[in-house]
């Protein structure tokens, strides 16, 4: 168990090329589960390779237990890695695969046997020890790959998209198992994925990356409820957050968002506001589950009538699509409440859940945070 700290880590592949990693600052405590998530090409795998020592960093420092390891060769870092393709040695048995790293470290044969047995028991792969990787199913290979990492009892585990080669059902099973394993062993773990559900379910801390930059670093809850910018908001969550472009208005010191469903209009009050926001092009973000059906009692000025265009039953929920401000908007409803196509609904927004983003920069507009134009931000609550 160890702490991991990335201090201002930079990586570039040449003077002319754009930086692959820019000023990465991450710090996690001993035993924490860190998720690096982002679209392909965002630099998350490069960052993981840098932590493992498979690639050199161009600047900054990587500290494990406050010791800078960035100059060390991979074998001296005491880090184990589970690869996306599992990277099992095809000509060795499962036993040989698990024992290889121990042999390389000149562990005594008896101790190796003991360790392989322990890991095999832990992962329930004792019956597979004599087989070659080619004779294993995807899920079994996955277990062996994890076993190989576990056998060394390293300070830090790295997982590089370990579940992306599994089918959907197995993926969910293994996800739970990885979580269970981590709860039991409490080893510091870094886990790379492009799957936002894995990021949400597994991580103690999540770093959302794009273009080699950390967009936001925080707990899954923070990332979900309080995204730093449009990219984070759009990347995390399924179905994704709705983004409705609009122009803010001001009346009686109140900030208003004007919504138009074609049938009706409504003015969503976003709270008291100070100067600087009016006539601003913004994007209003709201998650599908935060759009509710208005009841007779709750109906007010912030509810709006809209016609249902498409419905998609997913089983536990039904996704209902309407159009607001010429944008498709998804609402998540209980199947029993679900309307028919063509029906008109009365929808209601909780103004306190609504997020605002700058239409140009995509930056989150927050209360108390000064605007680029120098104005003050409205007093509305977020998250």
């Amino acid at each position, binding site marked *: 168990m160890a702490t991991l700290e990335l201090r201002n880590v930079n990586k570039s592949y040449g003077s002319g090329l754009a930086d692959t990693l820019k000023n990465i600052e991450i710090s996690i405590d001993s035993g924490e589960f860190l998720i690096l998530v982002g679209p392909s090409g965002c630099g998350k795998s490069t960052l993981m390779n840098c932590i493992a020592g498979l690639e050199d960093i161009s600047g900054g420092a990587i500290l494990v237990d*406050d*010791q*800078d390891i*960035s*100059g*060390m*060769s991979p074998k*001296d870092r005491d880090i184990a890695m589970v690869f996306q393709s599992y990277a099992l040695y095809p000509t060795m048995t499962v036993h040989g695969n698990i024992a290889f790293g121990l042999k390389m470290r000149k562990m005594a044969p008896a101790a190796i046997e003991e360790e392989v047995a322990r890991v095999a028991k832990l992962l329930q792969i004792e019956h597979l020890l004599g087989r070659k990787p080619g004779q294993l199913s995807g899920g079994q290979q996955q277990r062996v790959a994890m076993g190989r990492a576990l056998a060394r009892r390293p300070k830090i585990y790295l997982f590089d998209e370990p579940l992306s080669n599994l089918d959907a059902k197995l993926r969910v099973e293994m996800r739970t198992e990885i979580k269970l394993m981590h709860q039991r062993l409490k080893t510091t773990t870094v886990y790379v994925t492009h799957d936002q559900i894995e990021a949400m379910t597994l991580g103690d801390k999540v770093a959302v990356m794009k273009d080699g930059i950390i967009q936001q670093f925080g707990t899954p809850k923070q990332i979900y409820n309080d995204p730093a910018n449009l990219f984070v908001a759009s990347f995390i969550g399924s179905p994704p957050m709705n983004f409705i472009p609009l122009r803010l208005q001001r009346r009686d010191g109140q900030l208003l968002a004007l919504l138009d469903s074609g049938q009706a209009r409504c003015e969503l009050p976003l709270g008291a506001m100070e100067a600087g926001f009016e006539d601003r092009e913004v994007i209003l973000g709201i998650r599908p589950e935060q759009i509710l059906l208005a009841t007779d009692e709750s109906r007010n000025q912030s509810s709006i009538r809209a016609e249902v265009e498409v419905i998609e039953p997913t089983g536990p929920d039904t996704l209902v699509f309407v159009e607001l401000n010429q944008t498709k908007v998804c609402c998540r409803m209980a199947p029993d409440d679900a309307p028919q196509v063509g029906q008109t609904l009365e929808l209601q927004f909780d103004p306190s859940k609504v997020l605002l983003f700058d239409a140009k920069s995509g930056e989150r507009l927050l209360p108390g945070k000064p605007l680029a134009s120098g104005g003050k931000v409205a007093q509305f609550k977020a998250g």
Partner: protein
Amino acid sequence: MSSIAVFTKASPLDALQRWLPKLVLAPSMLIILVGFYGYILWTFLLSFTSSRFMPNYSWVGLQQYARLWDNDRWWVASQNLLLFGGLFIGISLVIGVLLAVLLDQRIRREGFIRTIFLYPMALSMIVTGTAWKWLLNPGLGIDKMLRDWGWEGFRFDWLVDPDRVVYCLVIAAVWQSSGFVMALFLAGLRGVDQSIIRAAQVDGASLPNIYLRIVLPSLGPVFFSALMILSHIAIKSFDLVASMTAGGPGYASDLPAMFMYAHTFTRGQMGLGAASAILMLGAVLAILVPYLYSELRGKRHD
């Protein structure tokens, strides 16, 4: 453990590990640079000298190339190469494609038949040449066999006919290499998406039409590869001429490779030989550069 080390020094062993890949490759890099590119440059230099039996470095400019230009035998060799290369490549391609398409029709004992088509490729050109020299022997070879079989007026003496001797080379070379073309195309045909063929069948196309209009056009890269390899074989062809005709009768069946060897190593015309080698390289480059260019460009599109 908890002290902050600014930079952990790599041990000498780690440093060695870091350099090992380069160290391992270095000798080969050196050999390639010297033994391939350095030597080409050296040959290039020699082609501008008056070297005869021994290399000397008295500069004579383009004189050796001018001599080549005026050399009857060089022209015969070059024309022969065009004729031989053109026929050899064309016939090999046609036969190879035909056999590949036929073999692609779910043939019983396909592996066995393929083995027969391809075995000449395992033989040395010298062996091939020796065999065909015997087969084409005027008086004792096919010539006599067909007369024995009752075709009284049959004459087949191309091997000693200066105007036709090149065709003998073509026959032997096609026999040796067409099976290889077949193998290339068969591999290509096996790679064609079967659903395309099914779609064409559903559209009502006949089998010959499917091959001519859909399957073969999609094998463009295979054509290109085969063309490349065959022209390479043609330009380098030396063993076949040496064993079948030794360039004769006279120098009627000379090829540039033979010309280069004869002038450089037996006639003491090193400068002239070097110049002819450089021209051969030029011919290869003329084919190779567009090939590599299209290969690399194709890669980028992937």
